[in-house]
């Protein structure tokens, strides 16, 4: 039996949207034939780039690490197939800024040869130490595949005791179905991955949250959980309401607890991972495979044949679109991610990365609505899942009153886009919040820098002052010494004089003796 929520912990706000999920779930997931070229960005995770460990012209095997991490927030990227590194250069990547980033260009040789790049399989993960598994997950380049791309190994290093492991299979954004398909097709691998995480974190329970618009995924996961016979794992059907798939909202719905503002789920004894991440962990640990491919949904009104594809990382978006029958003539904008939080891509040159869950091609809206003034209708506040007052945030962000935006908890905004979706005045509210957040961050950085400079300046002044003082003290001491030496001289002179007088007296006496008068 699939557990429905015994008690419905209601989140404030949220939206019922047109989900458009059926379009891309009609056929099973297809494996993509290898493209002629793979573009692998060095930076595919939250954190810093790892350093390169291949050179142009090198032959690499499938699964071979292309970068070498030397810090905690670094994870490597791997060759998705065997071939030759033909270039290492700046290339367009999926980033809101539209800027290029350093990428490794790999020309596949078609052999898909692992060589000796496959890592040692840990056939029974329960026998391994959590630290060994953590190392493996990090080496395999696994990051959060739900979109946040946070290094998975870090979240599995429990510094505080973890009571609940949450697995996010909600997939609340419209159009996206890759996790749905993964749960339908590979539930055993997901459950096996969950069991590895349970072994590492030793929580009391694991809740797998899946929205109730995915009955097939729910059933498949339930069957797999029963087969595994693990009583700690509970498959929970959660109501379909955007943005239930947001980590904080899912935790609230499943457990009734809230992640503290500015904190992490671990602060309340929870860790949240995506279903696809669980599967990647299974493959890395038990099969010894690094993260080389992922499920990607290719969908939208601008795509001829919406589908889900199993894509080697580094494949260009254009190649994916061609595999899905190409763009329709009405295609207007290309998105990576869903329609609520995705980013637009300028061209199909951009490669699929670890964060890519969906390629969405939208047609142009029928009529561009003019932006009207805010009439404070409050629909944004009603829809806000964080219970913020978007209308007030907008007002103050627009007026650049950033201290007031912080008073209204700007940084608790998860940028889900609900407010902008419902706004009858068509105000791009989320843009204002992004702007205000960026401004505040810049201000803080500038302030910190100024503080640092001021401290340094003050320290310098202090140092100069101290040096001056020390110098003066030394001089005074020296003088004193000199004065003391002067006094000694006088004494010496007196002694000298006394000696001289005595000598003179002696000489006189001697002279008297020589004149004939006996003295002794």
């Amino acid at each position, binding site marked *: 039996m699939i557990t429905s929520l015994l008690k419905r912990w209601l*989140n404030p706000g949220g939206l019922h949207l047109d989900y458009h999920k059926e379009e891309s779930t009609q056929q099973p997931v297809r494996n993509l034939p290898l493209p002629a070229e793979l573009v692998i960005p060095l930076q595919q995770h939250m954190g810093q780039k790892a350093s390169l460990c291949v050179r142009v012209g090198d032959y690499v095997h499938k699964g071979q690490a292309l970068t070498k991490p030397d810090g905690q927030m670094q994870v490597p990227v791997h060759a998705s197939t065997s071939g030759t590194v033909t270039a290492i250069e700046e290339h367009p990547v999926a980033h809101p800024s539209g800027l290029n980033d350093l990428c490794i260009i790999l020309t596949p040789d078609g052999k898909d040869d692992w060589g000796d790049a496959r890592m040692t399989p840990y056939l029974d993960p329960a026998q391994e130490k959590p630290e060994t598994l953590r190392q493996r997950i990090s080496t395999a380049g696994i990051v959060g595949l739900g979109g946040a791309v946070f290094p998975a190994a870090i979240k599995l290093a429990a510094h505080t005791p973890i009571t609940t492991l949450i697995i996010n299979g909600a997939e609340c954004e419209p159009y996206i179905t890759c996790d749905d398909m993964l749960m339908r097709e590979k539930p055993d691998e997901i459950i096996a991955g969950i069991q590895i995480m349970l072994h590492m974190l030793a929580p009391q329970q694991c809740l797998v949250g899946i929205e109730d618009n995915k009955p097939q995924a729910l059933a498949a996961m339930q069957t797999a959980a029963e087969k595994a016979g693990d009583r700690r794992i509970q498959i929970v059907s959660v109501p379909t309401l955007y943005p239930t798939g947001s980590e904080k909202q899912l935790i609230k719905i499943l457990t009734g607890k809230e992640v503290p503002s500015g904190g992490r789920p671990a602060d309340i004894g929870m860790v949240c991972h995506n279903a696809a991440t669980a599967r990647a962990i299974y493959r890395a640990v038990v099969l010894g495979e690094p993260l080389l491919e992922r499920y990607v949904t290719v969908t939208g009104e601008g795509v001829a044949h919406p589908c889900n594809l199993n894509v080697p990382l580094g494949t260009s978006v254009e190649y994916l679109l061609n595999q899905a029958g190409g763009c329709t003539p009405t295609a207007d904008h290309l998105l990576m991610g869903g329609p609520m939080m995705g980013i*637009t891509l300028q061209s199909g040159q951009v490669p699929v990365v670890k964060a890519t869950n969906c390629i969405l091609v939208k047609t142009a809206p029928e009529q561009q609505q003019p932006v009207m003034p805010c009439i404070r209708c409050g629909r944004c506040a009603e829809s806000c899942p964080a219970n913020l007052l978007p209308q007030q945030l907008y007002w103050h962000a627009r007026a650049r009153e950033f201290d007031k935006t912080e008073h209204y908890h700007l940084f608790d905004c998860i940028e889900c886009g609900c407010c902008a979706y419902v706004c009858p005045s068509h105000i791009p509210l*989320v843009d204002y919040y992004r702007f205000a957040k960026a401004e505040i961050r810049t201000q803080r950085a500038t302030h910190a820098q100024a503080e640092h400079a001021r401290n340094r300046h003050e320290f310098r002044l202090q140092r100069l002052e101290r040096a001056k003082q020390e110098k003066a003290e030394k001089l005074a001491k020296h003088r004193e010494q000199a004065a003391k030496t002067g006094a000694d001289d006088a004494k010496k002179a007196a002694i000298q004089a006394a000696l001289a007088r005595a000598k003179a007296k002696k000489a006189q006496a001697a002279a008297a003796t020589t004149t004939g008068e006996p003295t002794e």
Partner: protein
Amino acid sequence: MIFTQRTSPHISASTDVSHIMRQVLYALLPGTVLLVWYFGWGMLSNLLLAVLFAEGFEWGMLKLRNRPIRPFLSDYSAVVTAWLLAVALPAFAPWWLIAVAMLFAIVIAKHLYGGLGYNPFNPAMVGYAAVLVSYPVQMTGWPAPQDFSFSHIGLMQAVQQVFLGGTTGWDALTGATVLDTVKVNLHLHKALADIYPTKPFGLLGGKAWEWVNVAWLVGGLWLFYQRVIAWQLPVAFLGSLALMATVFWVIDSAHYASALFHLFSGAAMLGAFFIVTDPVTASTTPRGKLIYAAFIGVLVYVIRTWGSYPDAVAFSVIIMNMVVPLVDYYTQPRVYGT
């Protein structure tokens, strides 16, 4: 292929300001139809003149302020303001009275403060208060409501009254409203039981007026059903008004009218669903809405009972508009994780 660049979210609900304003107008229809039934040409001329003046002033101010004309003229916000004023002004109001009211509403209360969305005071209520204070005689001259009024006062007579004024025998047609009668007589220390027989009182409030109030209520409930208005505002307003009335009625039922009378007289229902709910000038937080509307209810009762005006929605709303920023500041909802 080069694709268009946008920022998320990339989809939006199919609604806009003009849609919301049109819904408010639809909700005003039942009450308006009844008013037209009771006051005939007098209410039609009010509506027509108010809308014409409002859109005229709106156009002029947009032009002066170099704002785009089309999106703002077609947002229906000026029409809503005009409509609310037209049903609040006495039927057969002279054209210049309507013009002055609309001048205060659209030009002064709305555009001089920055136009749609920026006005701290409810434009319709500013317009109403301005003419109520300036022209008390014209403002209290409501003709007695009559079934199918068109047959009693003809078009020519109406045109003459509205545009030229001073129609002979007009005074005979007009009279104090029920709310006014009750107030004046209570001041004369008459008991309610003695006052009621002097006027055509219905089941709930003044005859005819009670049905108009019921019609506003029906329209208001539809607005709530359409999620255009928040429940907090009408509930808190009507609740506090009823509570005040009940407390004093229980203390002395001979000299204080019942809650039913207060709820179904004057502008109580119109105020509750169409005036207090003006999003721009009302409090915007859930708790703030309760506080804001409850205080309006209290003020309406206080002014109706002990003030010198028979009805008090306009003044109460304007007074509470001033407090809105303060209320909003201190009634922030608890944010997730705090």
